[in-house]
């Protein structure tokens, strides 16, 4: 064997995007191979399989995985079979002006490549005891709803789907939805006004014991929540899947004292607490870096946190004894953490 023959061909895109080294799979994460790719419009669907050919861990319908994509970690809902699946299926909307994760999946990732992903995480699970499921999706927010429909069909649960989308977009997920729904076809709406009218109509006439699941653009989820609340739906019946957070203001500077080491760090405006901790080489686990996943929770021992996350419950916020350090800051000039 000659030296020339052993040289690997240079793969394209390596210069443009940082790629995680193959050995650096996080503890407990899965290394998956891209077994299939299909693109329809701005949505690219991936079929991810295990390297050994074994089935992958089962998951609760509505679960998502966190994928390392071009140096970013993005969360994507699992749309396929949830019981001993032979593959995890995700659908990725191209966000051209985003942070680059979806662009990398669209432009760089190819069949046969490997990527690392978290095990499935459930934060949007169906309610087994509910009398009826009202599933509302907007745009690419259809992805977790697909797996809810699968579960409802499998377990013969009562459900209905209201899907708001642009007529030309999400053609592939829509076809999958229509196929899954069978005789119980989704109600399709194509404008905000149409969605509002449909929601007012449907949410005013659901049997006691129904639950509402909503996934879609932030403004659409908020509008749905508002309509449901006006019609008397208690918050406990409304389940919202949040993947995106609004851009946060840079916030005021404050000081953090680490109670175990006694160190003090100044957190300037525009720098997150997590970034400052990383800069000081204080390891904190994290995943989403936008206040959604709950991974970077840190115990607070003094000072009042300014909560800006979507993870903590109202009671946990009021208790003030923990903080999601990726987005949250401090009301007081000094915050003491149990680190």
């Amino acid at each position, binding site marked *: 064997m000659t030296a020339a023959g052993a040289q690997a061909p240079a793969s394209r895109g390596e210069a443009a995007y940082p790629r995680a080294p193959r050995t650096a799979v996080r503890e407990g994460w899965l290394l998956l191979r891209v077994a299939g790719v299909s693109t329809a419009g701005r949505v690219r669907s991936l079929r991810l399989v295990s390297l050994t050919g074994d089935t992958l861990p089962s998951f609760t319908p509505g679960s998502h995985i966190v994928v390392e994509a071009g140096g970013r970690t993005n969360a994507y809902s699992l749309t396929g079979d949830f019981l001993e699946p032979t593959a995890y299926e995700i659908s990725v909307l191209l966000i051209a002006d985003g942070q680059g994760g979806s662009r990398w999946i669209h432009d760089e990732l190819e069949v046969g490549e490997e990527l690392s992903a978290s095990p499935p995480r459930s934060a949007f699970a169906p309610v087994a005891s*509910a*009398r009826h499921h009202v599933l509302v999706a907007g745009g690419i927010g259809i992805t977790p709803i697909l797996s809810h429909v699968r579960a409802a069909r499998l377990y013969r649960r009562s459900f209905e789907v209201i899907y708001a989308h642009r007529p030309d977009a999400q053609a592939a997920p829509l076809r999958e939805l229509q196929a899954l729904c069978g005789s119980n076809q989704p109600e399709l709406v194509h404008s905000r006004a149409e969605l509002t009218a449909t929601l007012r109509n449907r*949410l*005013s*006439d*659901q*049997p*006691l*014991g*129904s639950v509402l699941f909503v996934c879609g653009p932030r403004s659409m989820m908020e509008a749905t929540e508002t309509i449901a*609340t006006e*019609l*008397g*739906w*208690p*918050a*406990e*019946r409304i389940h919202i899947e949040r993947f995106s957070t609004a851009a946060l203001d840079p916030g005021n500077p404050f000081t953090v004292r680490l109670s175990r080491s006694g160190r003090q760090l100044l957190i300037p405006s525009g720098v997150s607490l997590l970034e400052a901790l990383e800069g000081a080489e204080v390891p904190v686990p994290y995943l989403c870096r936008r206040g959604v996943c709950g991974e970077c929770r840190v115990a607070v021992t003094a000072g009042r946190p300014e909560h800006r996350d979507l993870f903590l419950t109202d009671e946990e916020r009021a208790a003030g004894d923990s903080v999601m350090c990726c987005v949250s800051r401090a009301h007081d000039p000094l915050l003491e953490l149990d680190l």
Partner: protein
Amino acid sequence: MTVSADHTSVPRWPDEPPDVDPTGSSYLVVSRGDAGRAVALGWTSTIVSAAKPLWTHHESGEGPASVDALSWHLAAARVGTRVMVAAPELDVLDVLRAVRSAGAIDAEVRAHVTQTGDRRVYCPHCRTHTVAHLEVGDTVACEGCRRTLIVYHHVSRLNGSYFGYMVDAEEPAA
């Protein structure tokens, strides 16, 4: 029998009647007895002045009629309905049981207990329920099997009864 509040499912009813939940879109109000009626009238006047749909039912006598009447409405109830009950504890537990089995969650139900005293005790040995004037820690003869049951500090949400068990099982028969 003293037991920490954290370690019992015996309900601790507030002294004052709860307010009407203003977020409801329609209301079912059930009451029993004069004290229950007085509380229910306060609720219904609030609901009527908010111009919300309302169904009320009042019982003056004994028996399970209030739950029977309510069940029919619960079967047809829509999300947005709130249920309010003002009655002796035994009736309140019956209403809560019916309301939960119809799919309601705690956020949709508010209760006021006008008196305690009559309690239903479940016998796990013969599965009979015995109703009598009892306190937690008292003993009672099971109506099904005549075993001596102690009224334990556990209340089942599912069947609205206190848990009992044979208290003298270790003693030689007389």
